[in-house]
């Protein structure tokens, strides 16, 4: 074999095997199985196996009012959470980009929420905002603030999930943007200041253009991740009141594991995968200065 392919090729092949196996077995096969299931009717609780139904599940998608409603809730949640995380993350990153006393300690503390299990984050915020045992409603009552039943009305329930999400994921935004800020050339900043630019002008015209790429990546990552949010909703609101906090991920979870209709759940997964891919492609194309592919980068296109 060594003679046939040459020693180097053999080594290359051996080292590639784990990676290729991982991509095939853990990435590609489940994805292909999901595509296969999307054309099947399969109730895990009652059917002995999947049966072919063609595009029936896809036709059902367009008539599923609840799915459309959950898409609306998901978009609301994703946009708001990502926006707040970006603003807070950028602010914190700018703050930590300076020589603060105890900077490393502060940074370490800021990262704690991100390393907690999502279930723990959800439980913490469920207790914090709980009407009867929660310290936050208690403090609001102490200062004679308004009585807020966090999980009872549509908008406060959604807000409570956004608050928990912002608490958990702002540190990631901070970390990414801090890395980008530290890559900003100090010379250009100093030169701009020597030329009389104000702090705001330096940020707007010197710093921001240099971190736009990272902002795009961070926002993209968080936006897509927000589509996958499940634990917080299940623990904090259960998708309620009514269906007002039922995100697409919760809808899929319930379709698959509460109703056990695996075929239709797979169809929703595929549809949203395509939707997200399309959104992300347009998003990247719309970014100034972002080269979409290697060839575009080579030819300078895309910007």
């Amino acid at each position: 074999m060594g003679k046939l392919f040459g020693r180097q090729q053999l080594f290359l092949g051996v080292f590639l095997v784990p990676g290729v196996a991982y991509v095939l077995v853990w990435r590609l096969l489940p994805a292909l199985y999901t595509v296969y299931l999307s054309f099947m009717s399969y109730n895990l609780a009652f059917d002995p196996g999947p049966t072919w139904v063609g595009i029936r599940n896809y036709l059902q998608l367009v008539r599923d009012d609840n799915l459309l409603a959950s898409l609306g809730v998901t978009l609301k949640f994703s946009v708001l959470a990502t926006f707040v995380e970006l603003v807070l993350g950028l602010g914190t990153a700018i703050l930590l980009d300076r020589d603060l006393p105890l900077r490393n300690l502060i940074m370490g503390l800021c990262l704690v929420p991100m390393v907690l299990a999502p279930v723990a984050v959800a439980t913490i915020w469920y207790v914090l905002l709980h009407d009867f045992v929660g310290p936050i409603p208690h403090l609001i009552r102490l200062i004679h603030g308004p009585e807020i039943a966090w999980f009872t009305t549509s908008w406060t329930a959604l807000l409570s999930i956004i608050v928990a999400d912002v608490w958990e994921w702002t540190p990631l935004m901070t970390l990414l943007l801090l890395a980008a800020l530290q890559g900003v050339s100090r010379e250009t900043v100093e030169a701009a200041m020597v030329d009389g630019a104000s702090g705001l002008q330096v940020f707007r015209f010197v710093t921001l253009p240099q971190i736009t790429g990272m902002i795009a990546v961070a926002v993209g990552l968080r936006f897509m991740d927000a589509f996958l949010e499940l634990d917080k909703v299940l623990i904090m609101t259960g998708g309620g009141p009514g269906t007002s906090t039922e995100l697409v991920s919760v809808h899929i979870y319930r379709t698959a594991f509460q109703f056990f209709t695996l075929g239709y759940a797979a169809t929703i997964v595929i549809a949203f995968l395509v939707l997200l891919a399309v959104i992300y492609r347009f998003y990247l194309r719309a970014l100034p200065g972002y080269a979409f592919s290697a060839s575009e980068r080579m030819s300078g296109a895309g910007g």
Partner: protein
Amino acid sequence: MSSRQIRLWIVGLLVGVLMFGPVQIWVHLTPAKAASTVTLNFLATDFPEYDAFVAAANAAGKPMGIEVKKTNVNFDDVQKKALLDFTSGVKTWDLIFLNSSWTPSFAARKVLTPIDDFLTTPEAKALVNPTDFVPATKQLMSHGKLYSMPYLSAPLMVAYRKDLFDDPSERQAFKAKYGYELAPPKTYKELLNIAKFFTRKKGETLAGKPLDDDFYGNVIASKKPFVFSRYEHMLVAFGADLLYDPKTMRPTWDSPESVAMLKYYVELFKTMPSDAQTMTGGMSARFAAQGRAATAVHWLDLMYSGFEDPKASKVVGKFAYTLLPTQIPSRPHAMGADANGIGIYALSQHKTEAFKLLAETLSTKGVKDFVLKNYPEFPSMRVSVLNDPGVIKTRSGLYQAMLMVTREKSYLFSFPEIKEWAQLVDIACDSILEASTGQKTVEQALKDGQKRMVDIFKRAGYIK
């Protein structure tokens, strides 16, 4: 041997030690177990009744060389896990906790081996003694076969604060307001009146004492999907179908009876704590156990164990229980027959041992000993145990309440066996919560729900 070969040997040895070393260490550290002991893995949930079963089973299994190891998952995850593991061919489990609502799916997928399959000898039949089970056992059966050993069946009941009901000032005020004596509710109208009467704000008085916190007339777990497992009893009591008419196979979620019921629930919901819709059964019981509610609707055994636990309850000895009220006379105290059993996993490697242990532990004698010696509040499914003079002599509050169920004439109903049931329940929960929280009117919530149910029935081919 070249230096390169030596390096390869060293690397190989290191890999070997890293791979097999921990296994060897673990083998040496694991305490020696009798070679003949068979361990049965039990997939269950974290209910005290099932911990008690494990203790009793291990005591009974010791002479047989059988032990039980319990793995807890959330109540509603047991069904999911059992179905997924069975589909994937996982052979880990021997015993599975079964709630009656899962019987149709477990039977359809053959996740459990029917108990009937083991009743091949007169000894086995005598030990299991199927004639001694309470009527709710039929909920653990499908197509005439028993899919689990009946374990416990507690009725859904109304708990009320006896101390408040006996308070002269409260009695007087109630009579002045409603024109009749304050007493355990016999009708749903009376339950609502009681709940409204006792709903008070912080600072108002209750039984002559000022309240430190808001006090609520009623508490019912209203988190999705738990809300429906209470609501369905009331729905039937109001004369409605359980979501569809089995004769025409048409959803009846927007029927006049259903509208009347949801209107009633919306009113009752106003007497509950504001976050009742996020409460599970356990949370609602704990809330009432903190002395914050005058009435509660929940499973008898869970209320009793929660309210009478001196470590967790502020109202020990203050709650009494009564049957679910009546709305229409033809359906007195309507209640669904809910039951829980322990089944034998179809892929178990130790089915014979599992049956032997179940039959022995849950035999009439086994259950009687269990109640008298270990668990006096156990809601047994053995008729002879419920009527046993020794058991009755314990005169526990729980048994008195359970006897009330057997003495009074109640309208018992069964749950449907269609595979779209979980979807229908989900839609029903949405409608209930949308109306209760004021997102939609009762009529609109039911109309929207009805439309979704009709879609499901059309897709399933039940209707055109």
